[in-house]
């Protein structure tokens, strides 16, 4: 391959990788992305001298103006400066590629491609960005090296010289070995960059910055709920959060978890919402082990001394990597006991119905401690029924449009129950046994949706079941609310975490028991089993889970890598090293024993190794010193005499500098009044006459001068 061909190919690969970086972020609309790609591909054929400025001089200017107008319009419509800038950048990249002629043009292409990559990194990018970045690193290394060589050729030979064109068109300058070696270099650079990435201190100050993370929207989870609004709730495979559960290492150990998000107290005309008067939990902040724990206090709970231990007992720790959703609610397994959000300036706060919210930019990592075990039934049966006024108002609310037959049905279902727990259980059981689950919905028309569901349709999805149970429970005086979130998730065997997808969105009911708190009831029949129950072990499913593992690692170690994680990483490293040093771990102990046993042999081997290295270093240094010599020529016998004399002077601190001629050296010593300098002057002249003049000079005189020089002090 010719040098020019190799350079062109490497540059296009780099531009292609930068294009992919934009493409995977979705920053450009599909039509524009296709146009951009078409422009890049078309520019391949604009080789000099048939470049765009030569073919159509005005088209370039028109393209720049069009790009500027396009970017300006995009900014006006979207308000996103970076996305608008990407459009202008796309135009400039295509323009420069079509007009590439010299190293200067290629350098501008490299810069524009880099800016494209930077633009891509500002947008949210998934794990695929890692692959794109790796491709970019390899291609950019090729392109940068070849660009540098091309620039050198143009500068040394002259841009318009025929010789330049000859060298650039030459084959043999760059070959397969170059690409192989530079690929290895690229990978080394990549590996070093990764190591550096983890080491650079994370001291983000966050001025003038807002994230552009694309928000995930999907059917199933809503920050607000309207029954009958759906034609069909679709299965959505998008992962909305990944949860690492402390102490759980297999799917068998995994309990059925309800990832609580939003809760609604007010029902009216088929819609659930939060009322302004609904109770909200309070938050107690407590700093433990350099981390800020935020404890929500539900209901009328009070914070007591020593509460930390009690509240943290029997909790399940979940580390949640939440994707950017269209809501600022924080999810946690019901019921959350404490939240820890590290490395963020924003702090979670509570809203009505014990929701926990935190305003954030894009994705988030946080930790939740939850009490997932339901209190014993006896305790719940014995719970008092008296409620605070706010609870009575909010959680026993029934809209006037609820028909009497719904209330009558509730009473009928619970006629044998003597306490609220049994009433709630009876309603839940009745619903799950007597009605069917379906995702195919029919509009209730003018009918009250719950009434239509209970008496006519008798089939529905989770929102109908949860709404129906809430209303039925309230009809018999049991305080309840509708909760929206996710249930279960898919266990990932590769990295031991639960991937919760959009299709896991779910509605259920929380019933309040004074003294015991809120208890979860799920009246939806088993037809809506989560992925945990319907675990797919097919090849594609395994492959999908493997891909999701990579995504989590990318999210965990790159996107969400923050000062906390960095400190934790360093602490772990430090602990590992100290453990090794102190022999705390058994492998370390074994190693220490082995070292002790072979200390003498190792010491000897070490000494030999050091000696060998020293000798090798000495030889290498000597070789390097003596390496490049001009072709030897016959030396006169006076040369060694002169050299020895100068070396002797050198030991006295009067050596000859590399830039001094013998005569200059002698004159300098004379001027400095160094004893014996006059003898050196004469010796230098003899040296010149013999070495350069080819004269037969008296050797005995030279020796005599050298002796004089040696004695002079």
């Amino acid at each position: 391959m010719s040098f020019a061909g190799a350079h062109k190919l490497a540059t296009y690969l780099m531009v292609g990788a930068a294009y992919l970086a934009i493409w995977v972020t979705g920053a450009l609309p599909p039509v524009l992305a296709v146009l951009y790609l078409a422009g890049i591909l078309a520019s391949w054929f604009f080789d000099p001298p048939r470049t765009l400025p030569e073919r159509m001089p005005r088209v370039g200017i028109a393209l720049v103006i069009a790009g500027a107008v396009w970017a300006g319009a995009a900014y006006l419509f979207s308000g996103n400066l970076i996305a608008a800038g990407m459009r202008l950048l796309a135009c400039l990249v295509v323009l420069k590629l079509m007009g590439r002629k010299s190293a200067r043009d290629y350098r501008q292409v490299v810069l524009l491609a880099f800016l494209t990559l930077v633009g891509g990194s500002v947008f949210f990018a998934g794990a695929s960005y890692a692959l794109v970045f790796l491709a970019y690193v390899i291609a950019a290394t090729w392109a940068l090296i070849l660009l540098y060589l091309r620039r050198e050729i143009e500068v040394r030979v002259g841009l318009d010289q025929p010789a330049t064109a000859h060298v650039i068109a030459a084959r043999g300058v760059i070959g397969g070995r170059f690409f192989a070696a530079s690929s290895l270099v690229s990978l080394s650079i990549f590996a070093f960059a990764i190591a550096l990435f983890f080491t650079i201190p994370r001291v983000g100050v966050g001025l003038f910055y807002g994230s552009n993370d694309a928000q995930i929207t999907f059917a199933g989870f809503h920050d607000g709920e309207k029954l009958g609004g759906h034609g069909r709730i679709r299965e959505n495979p998008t992962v909305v959060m990944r949860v690492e559960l402390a102490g759980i290492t297999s799917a068998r150990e995994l309990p059925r978890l309800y990832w609580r998000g939003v809760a609604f107290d007010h029902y009216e005309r088929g819609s659930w919402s939060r009322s302004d008067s609904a109770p909200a939990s309070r938050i107690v902040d407590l700093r433990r082990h350099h981390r800020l724990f935020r404890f929500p206090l539900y209901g009328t709970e009070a914070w007591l001394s020593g509460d930390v231990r009690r509240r943290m007992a029997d909790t399940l720790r979940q580390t949640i990597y939440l994707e950017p959703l269209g809501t600022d609610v924080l999810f946690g397994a019901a019921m959350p006991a404490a939240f820890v959000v590290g490395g963020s300036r924003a702090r979670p706060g509570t809203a009505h119905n014990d929701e926990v919210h935190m305003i954030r930019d894009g994705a988030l990592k946080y930790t939740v401690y939850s009490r997932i075990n339901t209190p014993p039934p006896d305790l719940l049966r014995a719970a008092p029924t008296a409620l605070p006024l706010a609870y009575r108002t909010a959680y026993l609310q029934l809209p006037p449009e609820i028909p009497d037959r719904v209330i009558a049905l509730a009473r009928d279902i619970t006629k044998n129950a003597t306490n609220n727990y049994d009433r709630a259980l009876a309603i839940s059981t009745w619903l799950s046994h007597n009605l069917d689950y379906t995702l195919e919905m029919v509009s209730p028309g003018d009918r009250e949706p719950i009434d239509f569901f209970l008496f006519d349709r008798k089939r529905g999805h989770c929102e109908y079941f949860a709404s129906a149970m809430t209303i039925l429970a309230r009809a018999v005086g049991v305080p309840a609310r509708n909760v929206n979130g996710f249930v279960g998730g898919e266990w990932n065997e590769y990295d031991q975490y639960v991937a919760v997808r959009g299709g896991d969105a779910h509605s259920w009911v929380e019933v309040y028991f004074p003294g015991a708190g809120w208890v979860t009831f799920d009246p939806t029949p088993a037809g809506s089993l989560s992925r945990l129950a319907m675990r797919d072990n097919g090849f594609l499913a395994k492959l999908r889970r493997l891909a999701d593992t990579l995504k989590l690692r990318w999210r965990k170690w790159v996107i969400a890598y923050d000062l906390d994680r960095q400190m934790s990483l360093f602490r772990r490293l430090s602990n590992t090293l100290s453990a090794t040093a102190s022999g705390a771990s058994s492998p370390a102990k074994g190693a220490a024993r082995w070292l002790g046993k072979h200390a003498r042999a190792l010491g000897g081997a070490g000494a030999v190794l050091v000696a060998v290295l020293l000798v090798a270093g000495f030889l290498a240094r000597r070789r390097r010193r003596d390496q490049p010599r001009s072709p030897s020529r016959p030396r006169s016998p006076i040369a060694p005499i002169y050299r020895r004399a100068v070396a002797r002077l050198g030991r006295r601190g009067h050596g000859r500098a590399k830039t001094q001629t013998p005569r200059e050296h002698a004159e300098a010593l004379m001027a400095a009044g160094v004893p014996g300098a006059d003898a050196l002057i004469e010796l230098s002249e003899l040296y010149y006459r013999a070495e350069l003049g080819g004269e037969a000079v008296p050797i005995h005189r030279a020796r005599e001068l050298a002796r004089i020089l040696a004695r002079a002090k």
Partner: protein
Amino acid sequence: MVIGLVAVNTGNNLLYLLLAWLLSLIVASGALSEMVLRGLEIRRRMPPTAFAGDPLTVDLFVTNLKSRVASYAIEITDLGAGGAIDKPCFFLKVAAKKTATARYHHAFCDRGPHTLSGFRIATRFPFGLFEKSRELLATTDILVYPAVSRIATPPPEGTARGLASSTQLSRRGEVHGLREHRPGDDRRDIHWKASARRGRLAVREYEAEGCRRVTIAIDNALPTPTTAHHRAALEVAIRHAASLSVAYLGAGYAVGLISRTTRIPMATGPLQRGRILAALALLAKTTASAPFAVPPLAAAEQVMVIPRIEVHPGSETVSP
């Protein structure tokens, strides 16, 4: 720098990743530059003598001793007493285990011995971000003869025609004596017995018959204190003496040289030309108290070249 600032400001980890990549490029650049400069052997080929002001050709040979890795974009500068002596030579690629050559021309302005002390090898490979260089010691001495101009050969004051013995030496004729072998001597003139006895090569010198003889005498004494004008006048005189010597030798004269510090016995031919030019190249100033190596003869065969300093600086003339 900008990426670093933006990364710190935004806390965007992908920008941190880009920053880490850019920093890695810098580190890799240093390592690769070092690799490019390692394992290179550089040799210089140039004539041992040159004339002041005349360009000479210097060949540089760069051998890449590395077994697999080629060296790219190497710049080699020849170093003299005052640093770089000329523009650097650029090698785009020196393949592994191969030798590449480059050639440059250089003219020394001043007569006398010059030392090329070594090489400076530099590269900005692989990305042109930084220059890495190192200096290698490789001393080569070159003697720069005084500039010689075409000059008419004035007849010496008196001639030596008809002398019974001539000191013009030539390759054939009666054997005049033996001397040490010098580069350029004909191998047929080597006296093998004498060489074996001495342990060094010895060659025969022959007498030429019936040649004309001339001795160039140059007075290298300058007044004290010596000014730049004095030194310039001496240089002019030396150039003149060199031109005369070359002219006489070219005309078939046997030419000798005497000064207050040097004496070159009379002889003919190209070797004698080299001896006289070398002596003139090395001729240093002295004082009037120093006697001539051999007192100038009153004989008519002598041509005296004396630097004469005019009253007005810058208009020195030399009268032979």
